[in-house]
């Protein structure tokens, strides 16, 4: 299929729409007008981006858009190059931005009066534009410019509700960490520049095959550190659970769903495009990624399990899912270094499918969480409950998102989990025992992560939506406005489609990454996914075909219904509602219900070695002589964030200690500063003189 020049017009048109959405609300007042003028163009622009990206992928050819003004210096090259990989990530951006934009039309209205909706619209549109341009650029300089723009606009969005000092602190942490990441990324690019002498990605790609081993390793590690910081890999993840909850929920959806994927895009570009793993000596790089990924996954979900702030828990789950994506990428690198092309394609497919899935269902979950926070007035799960009856649509969407993220059939999470597991199980083909065993152990960690994820979402959905409301806010909760529901519905529908018709996504990914895997057969889009195995000389095929599973389930359901009806004829049974059985103690209240903390208590105790909880009990008495009558008892149990306590705090303390000592040279007197100048000049002259 030929790409017509209209396609680049689509892209530029989308950019213009975003710009309109950024600028318009700054001029309009009025609740509805500012919200609509900010996000309706954004929604339309996202739709254009989706169409554009899909057409680039389907056509199989890349698009180059040169900047209209000639670059004064070679380094200031702002031309765009959109190949299949960039188009795929643009598709992700577009899909999530579409649902979030529609959602934001209703959501941002709630900020009217307290904060500037125009500023929100401006920043969000800028954010999306910068993310799109990051994926489209072709040279280091423009990449860094747009990357920085992305970081800055998201920083301002994080501190949007700046009246809460906690948000300001979170924003500062985020700003610092993201710039540390950017520093590493710049370092990686600089190493490549030193090697190739040019700043354009094209030349990096061309030189990839001849890179010496040391360059490869250093670029790889630097890129992993840099992009990993932005993506939220452990141990660089500490900003994520602070920043994502602080931002408004539509922004959290964008940051968690899309910005993390842009970091993955960078990582994928560098590790698979610029640093080709083509010899077994490169396998350790992939193993590093697999281990970092599984550690992230496990730590992320462990921290999520004990959170009772709904948005913080979702943020920790993002850390977990990024870990899963990186595991897939790492496996791909390992397989590529041993020349196992089909398996590398499988692992990459799993990783990219999970990126798409995570973007969609995390966006959905954050949007639903935003709706809950708006309706119930709190983000603390211990104050929620009973929302399923009061906010039926939101609870349905949250349930869909929970089933998706827990990796349960028939939704999309299951498909990418299946693919990742198949990739892990295929590691027996790697002819190196150490690698095989390490990947095997990582897959056990992976399975533990999946189990814990299921448990935490039981808690998240169950405590927030089911049972009795635990506070006045939850009792009086109201359903979200219609545009928010439509936005969530879009994302939910995507979850279903991606789960039931996996071939749609797999063919998109295969053609965008340029591999033809023979994985897909049958009648697209309804065919099965297939992976081949060999053991003891026997070949077998593992397949899943979600449509067939649904058909089977539907027939089972019909059969069961028929059986139950037939078997219970002869006596008409009724269903009576009555108050919950309370064991004879009298009517139940809120205090007898389970809370989020109590639901996760067995997990917290089982993993005590990880959480190291501090507990303290304080009792006050009415009189010191009689300790039987207590005035109050308070019990506090807190789990420290392991990395903050053992990695970041000591490092920060050490740095501050050293800086304190250095501070002594700042005396505040001009004379001493001048003395420093004098001494330094004299020393310099001395050195110059001593040089032969």
């Amino acid at each position, binding site marked *: 299929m030929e790409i017509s020049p209209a396609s680049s017009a689509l892209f530029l048109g989308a950019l213009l729409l975003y710009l309109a959405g950024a600028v318009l609300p700054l001029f309009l007042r009025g609740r509805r007008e500012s919200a609509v003028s900010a996000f309706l163009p954004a929604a339309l622009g996202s739709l254009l981006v989706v169409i554009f990206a899909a057409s680039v992928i389907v056509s199989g050819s890349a698009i180059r858009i040169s900047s209209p003004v000639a670059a004064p210096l070679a380094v200031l090259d702002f031309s765009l190059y959109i190949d299949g990989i960039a188009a795929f990530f643009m598709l992700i951006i577009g899909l999530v931005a579409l649902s979030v934009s529609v959602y934001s039309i209703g959501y941002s209205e709630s900020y009217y009066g307290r904060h500037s909706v125009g500023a929100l619209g401006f920043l969000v549109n800028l954010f999306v534009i910068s993310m799109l341009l990051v994926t489209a650029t072709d040279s280091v300089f423009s990449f860094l410019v747009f990357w920085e723009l992305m970081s800055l606009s998201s920083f301002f969005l994080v501190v949007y509700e700046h009246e809460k000092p906690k948000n300001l602190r979170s924003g500062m942490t985020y700003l610092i960490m993201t710039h540390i990441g950017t520093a590493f990324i710049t370092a990686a690019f600089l190493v490549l520049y030193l090697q190739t002498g040019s700043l354009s990605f094209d030349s990096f790609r061309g030189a990839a095959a001849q890179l010496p081993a040391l360059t490869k390793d250093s670029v790889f590690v630097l890129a992993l550190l840099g992009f990993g910081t932005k993506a939220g890999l452990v141990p660089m993840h500490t900003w994520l659970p602070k920043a994502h909850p602080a931002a408004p929920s539509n922004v959290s959806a964008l940051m968690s769903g899309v910005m993390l994927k842009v970091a993955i895009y960078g990582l994928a570009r560098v590790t698979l495009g610029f640093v080709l793993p083509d010899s077994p000596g490169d396998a350790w790089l992939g193993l590093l990624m697999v281990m970092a990924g599984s550690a992230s996954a496990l730590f992320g979900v462990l921290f999520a399990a004990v959170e009772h702030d709904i948005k913080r828990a979702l943020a920790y789950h993002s850390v977990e899912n990024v870990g899963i994506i990186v595991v897939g990428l790492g496996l791909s690198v390992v397989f590529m270094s041993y020349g196992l092309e089909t398996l590398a394609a499988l692992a990459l497919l799993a990783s990219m499918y999970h990126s798409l899935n995570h973007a969609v269902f995390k966006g959905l979950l954050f949007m639903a969480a935003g709706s809950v926070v708006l309706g119930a007035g709190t983000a603390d799960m211990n104050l929620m409950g009973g929302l399923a009856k009061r906010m039926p649509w939101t609870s349905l969407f949250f349930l869909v998102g929970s089933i998706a993220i827990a990796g349960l059939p028939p939704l999309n999470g299951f498909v990418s989990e299946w693919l990742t597991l198949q990739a892990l199980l295929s590691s027996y083909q790697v002819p190196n025992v150490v690698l095989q065993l390490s990947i095997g152990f990582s897959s056990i960690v992976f399975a533990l992560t999946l189990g814990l994820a299921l448990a935490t979402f039981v808690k998240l959905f169950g405590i927030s939506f089911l049972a009795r409301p635990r506070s006045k806010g939850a009792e009086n909760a109201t359903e979200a406005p219609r545009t928010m529901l439509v936005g969530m519905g879009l994302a939910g529908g995507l979850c279903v489609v991606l789960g039931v018709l996996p071939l749609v996504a797999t063919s998109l990914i295969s053609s965008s990454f340029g591999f033809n895997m023979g994985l897909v057969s049958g009648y697209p889009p309804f065919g099965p996914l297939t992976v081949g195995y060999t053991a003891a000389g026997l070949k077998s095929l593992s397949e899943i075909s979600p449509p067939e599973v649904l058909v089977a389930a539907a027939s089972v359901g019909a059969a069961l219904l028929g059986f139950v009806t037939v078997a219970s004829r002869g006596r008409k049974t009724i269903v009576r509602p009555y108050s919950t059985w309370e064991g004879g103690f009298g009517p139940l209240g809120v205090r007898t219900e389970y809370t989020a903390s109590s639901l996760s208590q067995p997990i917290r105790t089982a993993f005590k070695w990880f959480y190291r909880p501090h507990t303290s009990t304080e009792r006050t008495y009415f009189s010191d002589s009689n300790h039987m009558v207590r005035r109050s008892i308070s019990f506090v149990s807190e789990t420290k964030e392991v990395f903050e306590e053992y990695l970041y705090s000591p490092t920060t303390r050490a740095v501050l200690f050293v800086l304190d000592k250095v501070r002594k040279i700042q*005396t*505040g007197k001009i*004379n001493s500063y*001048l003395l420093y100048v*004098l001494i330094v000049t*004299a020393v310099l*002259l001395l050195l110059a*003189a001593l040089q032969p």
Partner: protein
Amino acid sequence: MTTLLADLITLSAAGLLIATFGVVVRRSFIGWVSAYRYQSVVLAASTAVVGYSTGFWDIYAAAVLTLVVKAEVIPRLLVRVTSGVEGDLKMEANPYVSIRLSVLISALLVALSYGLVGQVLASARLDVLAQAYLPVSVSLFFIGLFAMVSRRTALNQVVGLLIIENGLFLFTTALTHGVSLIIEVGILADALVGVVISAILLTRMSQTFDTMDTGSLEKLKDD
């Protein structure tokens, strides 16, 4: 002729050094200003010598400009603007380094600059002008800096700055045989404006805080 030239060069260099010492020993602001005036005159003479030896006419023009601005305009301006300041504030009561010690240190600095620059010059092949003036200019620079370091009063530090500027001017003139006239004018204008501004600011400072002791700036430091 050449011997006359050589004598003139040596003489002017010596004159500059003497003038600089003259600045160092003074205690009061007025004394500094007049010593600076004297130094500027000698500087103008040196510049004229350079012009004479190279034959560029714009160096003569630069010499005249130096004479006019540095020897006349700036000292007058300084005195005029700071006339509002009380007299005893302009007296260097308590310098960080006592006058006697600073004379010794200045001598050391001169020796240092001669030694160091001599080493550097040995490798580069420069003509007699540079050989004579470069060490002087470097020592001017150091002494000016040292003066700023050792004096407490802000006004006196301004004079130190001016001495540094003199040294730099001599450096460039000797090395490149005259800078383009336009740049020369620019630099002079820069110095002029800088002096005026700092003088006004310092006057203000003395009126507000009743002191010009830069040591008390330390109290601004947030500890």
